[in-house]
């Protein structure tokens, strides 16, 4: 058989696929599973005018906004959970720097399932009476052709690119997950099916033999994957569920410095612009902090 196509590449090469003005989605939910190393690479690359279509976002979207990479966000939430509001998101909306389109959380999830089903829109009653349709022209009223009742039509998420972070995969782009999962991981699986342009960063590249022995863990077969990048601790300071927890100390620190634009700029200078590689970033965080976060195979 001819050689299989290798899809492994560097962070820089993968980030090079994202052009100014792209419509992208970043995996993860709340403080979990965000492809942060990829996000930092996008910032170093200086990408502009992104539209980020998401559901429950946190530091991933906040730091991209703060670095001036974002034009528009479609979401139900941008916040840092126990660490309070997302400061750059808040500032950018208050000053009108970015455009937003808001949906309720289950509807924001459903937009990705809708894309994955290959449908253009779906209908709901969920946001009737709220002010969301007033300010989001993409929520439109439709008549149920069967009953004549009024529903709200919601467009599919339809990202051009999806970038997610996962525990492991092979050089050819098969992505393996642990058997039991939590909802954020399941949402990433939906996201992976919402587009044919998928970049996956993984904690570890494993041999193809591992895939063939555990095919039931291969939840994203390689035909879906455009590029795969090995990035240990690539979700830090968010979690990579079942590998390590989110870094509460660092997120708390981020939530404080991001409140002040000057301090935030210094944060970017140290943790993003100031490092030449992801390894340098990890050195900056420190082995001790990283090791403390480990939760290997949690929830087996």
């Amino acid at each position, binding site marked *: 058989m001819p050689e299989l196509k290798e899809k492994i590449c560097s962070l820089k090469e993968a980030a090079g696929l994202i052009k100014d003005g792209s419509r992208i989605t970043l995996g993860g939910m709340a403080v979990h599973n965000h492809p942060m190393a990829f996000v930092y690479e996008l910032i170093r690359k200086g990408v502009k005018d992104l539209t980020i279509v998401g559901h429950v976002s946190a530091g991933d979207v906040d730091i991209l906004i703060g670095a001036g990479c974002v034009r528009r966000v479609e979401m139900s939430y941008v916040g840092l959970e*126990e660490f309070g509001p997302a400061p750059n998101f808040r500032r950018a909306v208050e000053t009108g720097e970015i455009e937003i389109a808001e949906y309720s959380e289950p*509807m924001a999830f459903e937009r990705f399932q809708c894309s994955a089903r290959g449908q253009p829109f779906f209908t709901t009653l969920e946001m009737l009476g709220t002010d969301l349709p007033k300010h989001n022209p993409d929520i439109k009223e439709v008549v149920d052709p069967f009953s004549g*009742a009024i529903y709200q039509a919601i467009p599919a998420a339809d990202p051009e690119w999806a970038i997610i972070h996962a525990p492991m995969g092979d050089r050819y782009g098969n992505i393996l997950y642990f058997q039991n*999962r939590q909802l954020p991981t399941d*949402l990433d699986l939906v996201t992976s099916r919402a587009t044919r342009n998928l970049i996956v960063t993984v904690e570890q590249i494993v041999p193809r033999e591992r895939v063939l022995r555990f095919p039931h863990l291969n939840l994203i077969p390689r035909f879906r994957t455009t590029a795969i990048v090995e990035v240990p601790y690539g979700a830090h300071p968010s*979690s990579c569920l079942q590998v390590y927890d989110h870094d509460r100390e660092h997120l708390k620190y981020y939530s404080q410095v991001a409140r002040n634009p000057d301090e935030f700029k210094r944060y970017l200078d140290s943790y993003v612009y100031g490092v030449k590689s992801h390894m340098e970033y990890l050195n900056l965080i420190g082995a001790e902090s990283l090791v403390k976060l480990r939760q290997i195979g949690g929830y087996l």
Partner: protein
Amino acid sequence: MTGSKPSIYEVMAAAISRELRDSENWFLGMSTGPQTILLLTRVPIVGMSLAQHTHAPNSFMIVAGWLMNPEVGEVPTHMESEFGTALQDWRCEALSNSLVLPYSAARGEIDVGFGSAAQVDKYGNCNTVCIGDYHKPKVRLVGPINQPGHFSLFGREVIVIEHERRNFVDRVDFISGVGYLDGPGARERLGLPGGGPFMILTDKAVFDFNPQTKLARLKSVHPGITVDEVVAGTGYTHDYVPREVPETPSPSDEEIRLIREVIDPKGALLPR
């Protein structure tokens, strides 16, 4: 231990418990910021568990949308995040790790939800989106999250909110949770399937809604709190104070024992 004075959080939990019935499904999301996590996550968990231990053993408590009937006394965390390893280790009766959930809000299978907001208005409309004009907000908040569904699809909603004047307004700046909109009949005209808010619970008092006018009204003040204090901390301008305002009933000795010895033995949920 038993017989000692209940804390304000125990009073709140007992107030929740009394409103819950048997064979219901209760839904609790997560929240942003430590004080909201205490009021909107930790207090309702104790309230739901108290109901299960007293009169509602067949009800299901759905935490964060995916953990069902956890062993509350073993809570491994202060509930800072909806997911994460700490919650993975929490024993429970059922859990959902996928979007194939065992319940459907759209089908009306959630009887009670708990929600909070930066603003709640006199008709129980809630706002988690922005303070001020939407396009030029004075304060941008986190977003609608799951609030629309709580108020439009669930059987009834308990609003749990810190008692601060600025939180109680005549009209919210943005409706993300639909209360009674602008008065009687508005929900029915829209055809909303759910029941909407029926109670506002704060760290000082309880409000309900006048069945005729749909306006919020002071139902009781917690032990040790005066009506004047509540009025000073409430931004409503309509007449919401009845002539007689009773005290919120304190939990019984048995309820206090259950909370302190069975439900929250480690004091992990409610501050002591």
